[in-house]
């Protein structure tokens, strides 16, 4: 039995737009955010994402789990980056130290040290802005896109029939497999399998993951036989595919697409001219320098 994304019909800005237009905009948004490291540009994108969220009429109760899961991962990763200084090394060669926190202990003669620098703070902020704007736009999609429209949206974007249908099926299967995985985990736990307590060398650990992964995979493949038969019985793939729903562009959709393309074009141009690189404001550098 399928588990579905929690989509509900709402009178919101997103849902009044053609899903194809929204996906095009999403793609342009994503591509633009990949081009920038500058906090100023990223804040513009973040503002757009926040506007989309606040006009989407999603209630906190409906979506809090998604926000918590993704939010915790984003915060964890940004914090880790902040702590280790990883990843920012190609952007700055000199750091302005604000504080250096030394741990009161040593591990094998190495003292854990945390350097709090201006660059790292801004790098973490930039990363947070970028990841959060991407994550929020992504969270919006399963809640605001009608699952009945998945297939025709991808077809409308120009993908061939079968690939569009494969994307449709993929999106529908994800919640179901999440549920199956949880079932398998519980069933194995009832048989004494504990995933948090896997011990042994790397090879032993990998072997012990098999009781979790193999049943889910094989169960999915077995279940697919029914789906394949159902599709064949309905003459899938014999001719060009038609859908029950039809999507029509309205003027607001053209406006959205134009806006998305303009956003991407502007971002590409700015990036080509060298703008949008990692940036630390002068006042922060001065403040950092004054603290030492």
């Amino acid at each position, binding site marked *: 039995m399928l588990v579905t994304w929690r989509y509900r019909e709402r009178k919101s800005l997103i849902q009044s737009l053609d899903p194809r237009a929204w996906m095009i905009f999403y793609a342009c948004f*994503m*591509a633009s*955010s*990949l081009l920038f490291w500058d906090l100023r540009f990223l804040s513009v994108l973040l503002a757009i994402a926040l506007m989309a969220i606040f006009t989407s009429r999603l209630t906190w109760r409906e979506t809090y789990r998604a926000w918590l899961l993704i939010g*915790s*991962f*984003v915060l964890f*990763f940004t914090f880790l980056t902040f702590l*280790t*200084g990883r990843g920012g*090394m190609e952007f700055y060669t000199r750091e302005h130290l604000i504080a*250096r926190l030394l741990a009161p202990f040593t591990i094998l003669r*190495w*003292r*854990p*040290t945390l350097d709090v620098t201006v660059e790292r703070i801004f790098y973490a902020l930039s990363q947070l802005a*970028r*990841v959060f704007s*991407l994550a929020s736009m*992504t969270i919006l999609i399963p809640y605001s896109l009608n699952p009945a429209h998945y297939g025709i949206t991808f077809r409308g974007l120009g993908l061939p029939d*079968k690939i569009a*249908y*494969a*994307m*449709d*099926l*993929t*999106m529908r*299967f*994800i919640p179901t*497999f999440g549920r199956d995985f949880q079932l398998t985990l519980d069933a194995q736990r009832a048989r004494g399998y504990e*995933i948090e307590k*896997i011990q042994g*060398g*790397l*090879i032993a*650990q*990998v072997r012990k*993951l*098999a009781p979790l*992964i*193999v049943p*889910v*995979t*094989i169960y*999915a*493949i*077995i279940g*697919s*036989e029914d789906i*394949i038969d159902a*599709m*064949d019985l309905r003459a*899938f*793939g014999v001719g060009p595919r038609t859908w029950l729903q039809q999507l029509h562009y309205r003027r607001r959709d053209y406006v959205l697409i134009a806006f998305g393309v303009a956003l991407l074009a502007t971002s*590409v141009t700015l*990036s*080509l*001219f*060298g703008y949008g690189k990692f940036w630390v404001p002068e006042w922060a550098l001065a403040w950092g320098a004054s603290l030492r």
Partner: protein
Amino acid sequence: MNRRLLSMIVALVAVLVFFLLVVWIGGLINPNLKLDQTGLLRFAFVGLGLLIVFVVYLITRGSGAWDVGTRQVVYMAIGAALYAVLSYLFNGTVFLVPSVSQVALRPAIAIPMFFGYAFGPTVGLFTGAVGNMFGDALTGFGLSPQWSVGNGLIGMVAGMAALFADKKKGLNVVLIISVALAAIATVIYALNPGQSNLLYYNPPANVFGDQNISLFAGLSAVVGLVLAVIVRFVFGKNVDIAAAVTWSMLGNFIGIGFAAISDIWVNGYTPAVAIVGEFLPAAGPNLIFAAILVPILVVAYAAVQRRAGR
């Protein structure tokens, strides 16, 4: 088909015109303009990856391994959804599985390898690429296009096994290529043993977490290769498993290698950093997963096939 080809050509020409305009107008405003393409390199590499796929497709089209029927559509979708869900679950937030020596457990990689081997290159490509995309989207960390293409290549090359009617013939060739690649990677590691594991090295002080890439991670490519060779000869009688493991191995090298090498330009790493800091920690452990999980999946699937009579 003609109309679609025409509209694609028109779109490409429009993009080209756009770039030319940017260069021209920019040159008018600032005569000393030098264009900075780093931001766009990601997409250039995605294009390169897709071009590789297309070329391989053109060459091997005749064998029928690339055909997409109802079965392939469903398997594609299942593979991508499974890969997405499993990558999300094992990304470190849901389970805290203890990781050994900088090698994080990512068993999900066995899915594109297995699906590519069992169902063909198209299924493998879709599983790897789209599954990686959705997995990244679920995790919330943002999509990395060239890694999606790299994962797609893993699945596609694993599916190349379907091209050889006689499995044993393909196996030895694959093994030789993989040995050569592993040797190159390990030699580069041996020349740069002090290379840090992608960390910024701050000379005046010890930065938290700055560790040189551990010996285990560095040699994991060789460990994985040895394991795959052992599996191949232990299961010599069962050609299916041997073929699955060796093709998955090759796919792993090519896919991860593509993504890691692309980072040389996209992120500005030096080749040594890309190979030792990204390729080895990712490709090596993947080999271990391939050598252990893929045979189990192949055996289980064979049992299913026997039962279903297909």
